[in-house]
């Protein structure tokens, strides 16, 4: 892909990002209830204090001006103070973000590690019992509501078998000093293998729940693209040359069959963002998703606004990366 094309795509991102910001701004601006009243809550303030607060928040300015002020602040990660925490929204989000990123990454790894082998085997043994089971499994995977699947896993592994924890990121007796915020890294940095194992055990059920729909989709994509590749001439030719089947499948076919899988995985990573609100709520996971849900009930609008914007911008950028990745991996496709 040429640099010019890449630049063109980056420029195309700008109106989308502006539009996304505008929608987030309008969403919150149209929210019923006066922000000053919500902020002040039960406290009584004088009309002068109220006017001062309104001026400080920029609420006395016209809508258009307020949007540009919001935008100027947003690019500096300045979203004002969280009503509930009494601290800058950006700080509160930064604290919770590593938990969400860690969970999403592990979910992605779980999904890839399950979907690719299953998809490949299902394609190689097309119409076998295993293939049918994988197909039924993938259908179940996209039909299971995540919150219910999470609860079933808790009932089975945490309540009934008692082999995995019910909720949280790590046991109280295994807490380590936060360096990166990613517990799997922090526990290793502290040299505490026991705590690392504990963090991993806490991650397992939420990651499986979050990754399930993605696993189902990636399995289907891998299966169908593997079937497609196995029909290609170069695979038949490699087999005709007398190369062992295993070598043909894994060295020749799989490499090309994985191109759509990787691209779809990049797109689906964006969908993990929505899923983690549900999963974090089910598993009491102290990440950004749960923070947003809590903030809705607390009417903590600056935080909701910042988080929705952050999610949307990340989603747009992930989709952009997926597009680029697809073009890089598959040179036949031109942007």
């Amino acid at each position, binding site marked *: 892909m040429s640099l010019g094309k890449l630049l063109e795509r980056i420029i195309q991102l700008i109106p989308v990002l502006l539009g996304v910001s505008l929608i987030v701004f309008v969403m919150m601006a149209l929210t019923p209830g006066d922000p000053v009243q919500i902020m002040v809550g039960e406290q009584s303030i004088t009309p002068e204090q109220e006017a001062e607060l309104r001026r400080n928040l920029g609420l006395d300015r016209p809508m258009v001006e307020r949007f540009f002020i919001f935008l100027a602040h947003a690019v500096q990660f300045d979203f004002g103070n969280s009503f509930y925490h009494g601290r800058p929204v950006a700080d509160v989000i930064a604290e919770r973000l590593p938990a969400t990123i860690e969970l999403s990454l592990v979910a992605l790894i779980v999904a890839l590690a399950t979907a690719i082998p299953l998809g490949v085997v299902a394609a190689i043994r097309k119409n076998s019992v295993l293939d049918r089971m994988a197909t039924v499994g993938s259908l179940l995977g996209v039909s299971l*509501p995540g*919150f219910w699947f999470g609860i079933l896993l808790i009932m089975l592994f945490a309540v009934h078998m008692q082999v995995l924890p019910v909720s949280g990121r790590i046991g109280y007796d295994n807490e380590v000093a936060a360096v990166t915020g990613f517990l799997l890294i922090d526990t290793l940095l502290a040299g505490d293998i026991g705590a690392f194992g504990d963090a991993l055990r806490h991650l397992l059920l939420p990651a499986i729940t979050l990754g399930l729909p993605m696993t189902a989709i990636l399995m289907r994509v891998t299966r169908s693209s593997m079937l497609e590749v196995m029909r290609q001439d170069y695979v038949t030719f490699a087999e005709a040359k007398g190369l062992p089947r295993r070598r043909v499948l894994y060295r020749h076919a799989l490499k090309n069959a994985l191109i759509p899988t990787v691209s779809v995985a990049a797109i689906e990573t964006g969908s993990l963002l929505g899923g983690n609100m*549900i999963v974090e709520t089910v598993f009491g996971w102290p990440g950004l998703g749960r923070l947003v849900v809590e903030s809705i009930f607390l009417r903590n609008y600056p935080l909701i606004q910042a988080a*929705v914007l952050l999610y949307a911008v990340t989603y747009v950028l992930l989709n952009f990366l997926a597009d680029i990745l697809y073009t890089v991996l598959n040179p036949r496709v031109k942007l």
Partner: protein
Amino acid sequence: MTDASLAAAPSAESLFRRNLRDFSRNRLAMASLTVILIFVLMAVAAPLIAPQDPNETDLFRRLQPPGWVDGGDWRFPLGCDALGRDILSRIIYGARISIFIGAAVIVLATGVGILAGLAAGYLRGWVDVVISRVVDILLGFPYLIFAIGLMAMMGPGLLNIVLALAYKEWVIPCRVVRGETLAVRELEYVEAARALGAGPRHIMWREILPNILSPVIVVSTIRMAHVIILEASLSFLGLGVQPPTASWGSMVSDGRAFILEAWWVSTFPGLAILLLVLAINVASQALRDAFDPRFSE
């Protein structure tokens, strides 16, 4: 009707019939369709078939187990929740919410999507630019987050859920309709209608729309399953239909606090969601295979 569309009509009808025959021969699809029908009937006839009042509380029946479990009572076959309400009756009434919201969102979104997609694909120019930009921007939001943001703004309620989901859902049929319209707008039958002096409105509604409706219907059915899960997710988070109205998502949420002692409170409503969504997914896949030859293996 123009001569061109008259000429096209018989072959389109026979193709439709053939596709319908293919669909009806798929046994799994027919079984799924039966499950969907049962749920729809359950929703429509809820007051007639529900064994109990879904909102009647009785703390003496608090967390009463299902009929076949020790301590259970067959008058409350699937047991009771923490307020002593009959779970089966609440599931039956909950079907109303899931199916109504699923259908309302899809009908609304498909209607808007068809209008916008036809306009963008046929009129092109600035109409296409504006609609496509709006679609791009809306696609920039993860679905659930967009809906959650809107629900935070509008507050909970049945109509608000429908609107919150439809505001983003319409982009899916819109993209399909726009793509299909672009593909057919230069075909002979459209050219012929144009040559006969038909106006844009006539061409879009009478010539193009009937010929591109199959993929739109297929996509809408596939999306319905997705919308039902989204509604249940919003209700689970407490942003959907408000208590005491029974909705499957909020019933699962109600049971979360009692999974140690009363597994049935969360399990059965979740199973209802799974069954309905699975049936819609299977049926819509069969519909896609039958009506859209690009997808059949």
